[in-house]
């Protein structure tokens, strides 16, 4: 069975719940207060962002100090915000404390119960839930890391993650290899500025390991949409000669079928340029010039 293009691999079967009323209970890490913040609303069962946009007064926000956990009085305040009946408020408070414990234990950036249901017989049930785990927690939570289902992900993104690269596939035809997330985003933006479309976001990170460049090229060239490859490297910690060596090694093993434009500047730039020119590549030290050239080559190739 497929739902919205995703294949359903596992199904949880449970007793059908008679729904009297539906509420929303969620926790996120809030950037503004720098704390876990509860969001509760009696308007459950629908998208909470919709509620926040149209009727924000229906949501109660409660920041929690993680050094003390969720005290009962805060949980009860939220319980009474949802239910007048003290029994239901207590039951809801208990569920919220359990949700909070799970949120902290599983290293979540979001945990939500939607809907939290009151049945016609007055029972409180968490009918559906969702948790988003912070990637930075996975090293210390191997049991959770093991739950990752790679079959539902873009294969090239799985390949990249296993090679310690940050890669996101996009729809364009200029394949980008950049060091640093901010520069990688700015490079994509500049491709667009000059009339092209980026094929991906790819950050090879700060360390200068030629192996990373080899993996990056393999992943990018496996995308048939890519008509031109653009390297944009600003060498700080990254040594540009390592990147140049990576390009030479990778293209010797697997000759490129599409043109490549290389911009590199910074640490060991002179050595890098020599390595590249000795091997028949040319290199630019200007970002704008390189991006314009890559866009031209990609556009020319698709005509």
């Amino acid at each position, binding site marked *: 069975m497929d739902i919205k293009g995703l294949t359903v691999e596992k199904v949880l079967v449970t007793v059908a719940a008679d729904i009297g009323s539906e509420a929303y209970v969620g926790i996120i*890490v809030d*950037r*503004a207060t*720098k*704390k*876990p913040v509860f969001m509760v609303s009696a308007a459950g069962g629908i998208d909470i*962002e919709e509620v926040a946009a149209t009727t924000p007064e229906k949501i109660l926000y409660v920041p929690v*100090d*993680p*050094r003390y956990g969720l005290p009962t009085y805060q949980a009860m305040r939220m319980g009474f915000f949802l239910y007048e009946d003290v029994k239901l408020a207590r039951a809801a408070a208990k569920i919220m404390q359990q949700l909070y414990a799970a949120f*902290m234990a599983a*290293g*979540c*950036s979001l945990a939500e119960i939607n809907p939290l249901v009151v049945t016609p017989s007055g029972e409180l049930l968490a009918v559906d839930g969702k948790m988003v785990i*912070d*990637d*930075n*927690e996975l*090293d*210390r939570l191997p049991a959770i890391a093991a739950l990752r289902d790679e079959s539902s992900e873009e294969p090239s993104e799985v390949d990249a993650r296993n090679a310690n690269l*940050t890669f*996101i596939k*996009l729809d364009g035809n200029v394949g980008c290899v*950049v*060091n*640093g*997330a*901010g*520069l*990688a*985003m*700015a490079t*994509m*933006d*500049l*491709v*667009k*500025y000059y009339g092209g479309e*980026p094929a991906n*976001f790819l*950050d090879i990170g*700060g360390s200068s390991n030629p192996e990373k460049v080899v993996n990056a090229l393999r992943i990018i060239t496996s995308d048939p949409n890519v008509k031109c490859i653009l390297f944009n490297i*600003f*060498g*700080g*910690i*990254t040594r540009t000669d390592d990147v140049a060596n990576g390009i030479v090694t990778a293209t010797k093993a697997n000759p490129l079928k599409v043109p490549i434009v290389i911009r590199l*500047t*910074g*640490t060991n730039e002179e050595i890098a340029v020599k390595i590249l020119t000795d091997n028949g590549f040319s290199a630019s030290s200007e*970002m*704008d010039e390189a991006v314009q050239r890559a866009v031209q080559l990609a556009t020319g190739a698709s005509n």
Partner: protein
Amino acid sequence: MSIFIGKDTKLVVQGITGRDGSFHTNQMIEYGTQVVAGVTPGKGGQTFAERVPIYNTVHDAVQHTGANTSVIYVPPPFAADAMMEAADAGVQLIICITEGVPVLDMTKVYPFIKEKGARLIGPNCPGAITPGESKVGIIPGRICTPGPVGVVSRSGTLTYEIVNHLTRAGLGQSTCVGIGGDPINGTNFIDCLEAFEKDPNTKAVCMMGEIGGTDEQEAAEFIKREMKKPVVGFIAGQTAPPGRRMGHAGAIISGSAGTAAEKIEAFQAAGMGVAKRPVEFVELIQARLR
């Protein structure tokens, strides 16, 4: 004059014997930073590069050397503890370079450091540099030169790109600060803008933001309300798809919030110059310094 770091910075390096820590400590010493101590538990009593004493704890380092600033290169699982240790030892400025610190750790570290009265920059940041005086972190010294432009950014290499353009155009920098790409960081844009506004050597400010969160929008309101010095802004991630984490944990568009378009609109509403490409900072800053 400068902000946060300068000639009086006396630095302790946490994780001085690690791969990154030792490499960058040498670079900082070479630049002229006063590196007075290092910390690696179990290596107390040893000496780094024949000149920097190593201590087991930050408390020992501060007691013996009077270090007032710390830089952290320890791996992510130990970074939260390292930040708290520095604050507890009385260090006033803590710069955490480490990338990959769990955000829930930061929800506990942040209030701890506030209560100790210290300032944290980062985590997941390139640090800060006051050209010609002191460099704390990993920003390459040779691309910087002293001058009147303050630089604050959520990114690393993108900052280098822009600082490089400034330096080549003869626009030196008062201080460059990388505040980091994580959702919870110790110092935000407004903290830096406020410090630049007060710094007599800073005449104009370059600010590089990213998609995700509302820090840039709040900074724009601050600029409109409180700042007399000109600020030029840039937002990376105009072509980023929603819902995906663009490398930095904080660079994610959630629902309709945190887009580049809304941030650029906030910049324009605040009367700021907006660079559409990194290279445009040069002209926009030159025009404002005339």
